[in-house]
């Protein structure tokens, strides 16, 4: 059986990488329940990157699940990129995380049709890992 493909996406200040995405990936890769079931790919792109470009890069990876990190400097472009991704690939499950959505999670999910779920807690790490596992088992 093919592993679930999860793309962790962040738009960072140029030259930086997302610590949040790195945590999520590290936790998930140490989770023995996910071993062999989930393949992670992290896309650390620069803030200011054309959202179309971001969507293109994500779609090239053909993810089943996207974990998107929302920060104040990236939220608008991230929403636009995910809108394009959702239009092109409606079956891709999108999980939002990061400081820009966690405190307003319900509102964010209501407002944005391209978001399916959101992570919470300490960078949403456990939640997103478990979500991937749940999706893999067909329970979410």
């Amino acid at each position, binding site marked *: 059986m093919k592993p679930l493909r999860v793309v962790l996406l962040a738009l960072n200040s140029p030259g930086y990488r997302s610590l949040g995405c790195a945590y999520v990936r590290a936790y998930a890769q140490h989770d023995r329940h996910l071993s062999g079931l989930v393949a992670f790919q992290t896309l650390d792109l620069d803030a200011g990157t054309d*959202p*179309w*470009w971001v969507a*293109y890069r994500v779609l*090239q990876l053909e993810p089943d699940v996207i974990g998107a990190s929302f920060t104040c400097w990236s939220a608008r472009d991230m929403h636009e990129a995910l809108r*394009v991704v959702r239009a092109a690939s409606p079956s891709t499950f999108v999980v939002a995380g990061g400081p820009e959505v966690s405190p307003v999670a319900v509102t964010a999910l209501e407002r944005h049709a391209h978001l399916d779920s959101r992570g919470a807690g300490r960078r949403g790490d456990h939640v997103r890992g478990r979500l991937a596992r749940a999706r893999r088992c067909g329970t979410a």
Partner: protein
Amino acid sequence: MLPFARVEVGMPSRRRCRLCDPAAPSFVWRSPADLAAELREIVAEWTAPVGPSVMLAGAEPFLHPELPTIVASARNEGFERIGIETDGVALDVEQNVRGSLGAGVRHVRVTLFGVGPVGDRLAGRSGACDASLAGIRRFVRAADAAGMPVAVAAVVPVCRHNADQAHLVVAAAAQAGAGHVRLEAAGDPIAGIEAVLAAACDTGTVNRVWVEVAGLEVPESHAVHRVREGGGA
């Protein structure tokens, strides 16, 4: 995935280096009315969930005397994304850059055959490569200053004359500000260039420019760089 309709504004559509295709091109342009009709038809028949998007290509679009009219037609027809495939030389003219951005062009694909004297020889003109890179640089800078997100790709038609330069082209394109380099097969298959292509991909990673490879073999370790079916920016 994210498809573009390719509309050729004129002939010939040169994507081969001068050593592969030595004949000097003589351009034949399509009329704006003819192109507008094609653009209208594309919009009417567009079924992809994203778009419509169009890439104006063929003979160098910036040499078409009616390019502003053609871009305006595309915009009026409701294209979401308008791109131009160019050799990039015309982008080193401020007026062209401002005009393109102002007209709604957000995507450019610049053909690069190589760098330095070798690249110039393949492009068929002295100084061509530097001019193309300068065009990328100016376009990116102008878009940045205007706060307009743009996608700039360098397209390298890879043949036996420039395969060993692939990593150099990637580095030069990255330095000029391209966000993406596409290495695509041009001409006969070339054996034994996997390592060079892998180096080109790695050069892109180091320089924060994504490299994708179309129609050429890359090692399994670099499979993520292969263009998937229906892909290509």
